[in-house]
């Protein structure tokens, strides 16, 4: 288990100490579906190595924002700068190969496949050998598979899901499925990990576990994390900075304590008499 802590696994660990640079910038982005404006003129950045939370009441445009970040939606107005380069329009799988992985609000796993296979599927973008040699499972293809399997086993160990390695995920409780989904995202060794409500529907203990894992992923792998979450306690504890959306607009941005004290945020959450 200590193999996973070697320095080569965490290219960004040192950079955390330095002045953090932007991993991703969103500038004046607007997105609408027909006449419905989902996101209006939003700008913020995600710095390397941080945990960034996106919060807001229902329908604030959080998930749309996430979809913009990972390239699933392309905004009508505004630019996305990813690792210093302005991003052109691209397909989601292209986004994935750029180093962005995500989990979903509703678990999206292959229910009939085992935990191991599901996480292994996260490695598919990194498989280099061609279809035929993989089919024959011969020579370099086999070595490659073994190397990938090793990485997957490290993730299984990291997430402490050894006991369900061979269990079809459809049979697992929800909390564990969420963990498997996180495992699959990690298998891509992403630079940016997007988590869409990682704690939704979990009990207190599962939340505590998941928080631990998120912090550990950030610390051990140096992965930058952007998460959407409704549980304010979790958000305030986990994240370095929080951006708050309401009706598709940004109403606050900053460290948790600051955001918590902001009148605009309090009004958005508690409602205000007009």
């Amino acid at each position: 288990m200590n193999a996973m802590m070697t320095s080569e696994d965490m290219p960004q660990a040192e950079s955390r100490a330095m002045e953090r640079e932007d991993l991703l910038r969103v500038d004046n982005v607007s997105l609408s579906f027909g006449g419905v404006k989902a996101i209006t003129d939003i700008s913020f950045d995600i710095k390397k190595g941080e945990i960034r939370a996106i919060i807001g009441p229902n329908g604030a445009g959080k998930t749309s924002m996430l979809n913009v970040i990972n390239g699933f939606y392309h905004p009508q107005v505004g630019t996305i700068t990813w690792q210093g380069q302005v991003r052109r329009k691209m397909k989601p799988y292209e986004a994935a190969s750029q180093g962005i992985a995500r989990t979903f609000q509703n678990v999206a796993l292959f229910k009939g496949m085992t935990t191991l296979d599901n996480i292994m599927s996260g490695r598919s973008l990194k498989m280099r050998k061609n279809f035929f040699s993989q089919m024959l499972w011969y020579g370099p293809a086999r070595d490659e598979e073994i190397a990938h399997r090793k990485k997957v086993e490290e993730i299984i160990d990291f997430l402490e899901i050894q006991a369900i390695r061979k269990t079809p995920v459809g049979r697992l409780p929800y909390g564990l499925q969420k963990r498997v989904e996180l495992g699959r995202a990690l298998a891509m060794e992403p630079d940016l990990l997007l988590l869409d409500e990682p704690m939704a529907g979990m009990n207190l203990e599962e939340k505590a576990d998941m928080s631990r894992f998120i912090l550990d992923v950030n610390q051990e792998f140096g992965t930058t994390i952007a998460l959407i979450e409704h549980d304010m306690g979790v958000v305030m504890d986990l994240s370095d900075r929080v951006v708050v959306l309401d009706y598709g607009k940004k109403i606050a941005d900053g460290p948790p304590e600051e955001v918590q004290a902001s009148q605009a945020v309090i009004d958005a959450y508690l409602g205000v008499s007009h």
Partner: protein
Amino acid sequence: MAGLANVASSGGDTFPKILLHNAKVFGDRTAVREKDFGIWQSWTWAQVRDNIRDLSLGLKELGLQQGQKVAIVGSNRPRLYWSMVAAQAIGAVPVPVYADSVAEEMAYVLGHAEVTFAVVEDQEQVDKLLSMDSEVPTLKEIIYDETRGLRDYDHKHLHDFEGVQALGRKVLEKDPGAEKAWADGFAGGKGSDIAVMLYTSGTTGRPKGVMLSFDNLVISARNANAFDHLNEHEEVLAYLPMAWIGDHVFSLAQAFTAGYCVNCPESLDTVDVDRLEIAPTYFFAPPRVFESMLTSIMVRMEDAGKTKRRMFDYFMGVARRAGEKILNGESVSAKDRLLYRLGDFFVYGPLKNRMGLTRMKVGYTAGEAIGPEIFRFYRALGLNLKQLYGQTEASVYITLQPDGEIYGDTVGKPAPSVELKIAENGEVLYRSPGVFVGYYKNDEATRSTKTEEGWVHTGDAGFIADNGHLKIIDRAKDVGKLTDGSLFAPKYIENKLKFFPNIKEVVAFGDGRDRVGVFINIDLTAVGSWAERNNVNYASYQELAAHPQVYSMIQEHVDQVNRDLASEPMMAGAQIRRFLVLHKELDADDGELTRTQKVRRNFIAERYAPLIEALYDGSTSKHVRTEVTFEDGRVGAIEATVEIRDMPAHDASGLQEAAE
């Protein structure tokens, strides 16, 4: 006694010495395996020696000194076992602690033991130890195995396991004589030195630190190895808490003395799969493990197809009839023998394989009484499952069931070199080479437990049956006497009754009285479903409990227990002569049970004093009013008229004597 103790004199008398011996004799044999990253990683005895040596030298560099205590906290991992021997090589004493105990309890133990070093599994344990700064002022250095999450901690007194080993290797590189100096350091160690301190969980009062010497452990382990013919080819699974004497003896003492391989599971949740892969040859499990294995088999059989189920039922019938006899070497008809063979091929073999017990040579269960049905199930499959009776203070072994002499209700004959005697009050005492040195910093407790001649009070009452086997009946302090002098063991009677599914809780009275009377609590689930099946209508627990048909049913159970008691000479005097079914369920909210669902006898005696009076004054019914606390905290009262029934006693032949 002398003959077997001699076994112990061959080879080293401390674990560091035995380690060097094993590395020489079994150098290339696998000593330890641990499943990690989905693969069984293994270490040979020679590699284990190198690992322990590096760590030991590293610990010394960090300042560990002879006589100091080293806490070991975590689940079963090779590195934690190695840490114990590495500490012993310096003359320090390892103190394994229950990893799941709460910080407060752990703080008491570590503070009491005055540990200076701690080797722990992961961040969770590091956090726990760091939080007890003030309670354990002696603690200087913490060494952790799993680095995860600990990166940002202050590493002034915190060390990575591999880092400590690297420190040890550096010493070896600088000074070529270091290895010899290390070995010389413990060459002079004596068998009488303290090897380990284990804290007993202690149901009453604070935990006590049991000091065991190398002699205690090494001689007991060698005796046990000889008793069950264990050698370097055995495989065991180390999955029970390291702080528990059982694991210490099975996974360390016996493994070192026999040279066999210890397998550490991947995690606690994977034990079932890991056992299947390893197929241990020597296996220990508390009764609940065997229970849950059996339950999962039964549940899956319910879901199986018709043919399979019929095959299972048929061959299990054969197994029950012939299996145990074949195992005990008794005579069995040729037909049954043939059928048993067939059954082994179709049913027993695959079953054993599923449970990972195919290669099991010897299996033990202990700790609490195992249900006779469950015990018989495994024996019938041809598994050599046996019971033992032991204690931390005895280095485990007090009695063992020898092969072929298995009785469900006894715990076996004295283990090799163990002497037994029964005190006046029925308490079991023993004397053996495994008897502990004393309790750490608690001479008073040592004196009250261990006599000057070396006899140890077990605290359990029992007797030696006609066949020479020990039978445990109750905690000694609970055992009393009836006025006619016959032995009264409440727990023994209560357990016999509780064995019936209809009965949930029982409280027996009789100490200092002329006869035994019991309170019975029916089990609402079992009796309720019986009522449903038999068209018995009831509106409340109270009504069901007072139903005449329910009373008759319970009466039959009581009679059955009396019949059982009559057949045991020691117990025949304490048959149940009066019983009543309580009108309310005993409840922890009302203080009648402890939070762990144990009956609080004295409290109940006080609360239901009028009912106890009625048990003994001959009346056939009694009106009572009892206050109860509802779940939301309100207090109410229930009233009922409780019926009391007389029971006839049986004589030894099973005939009824006239009721008084």
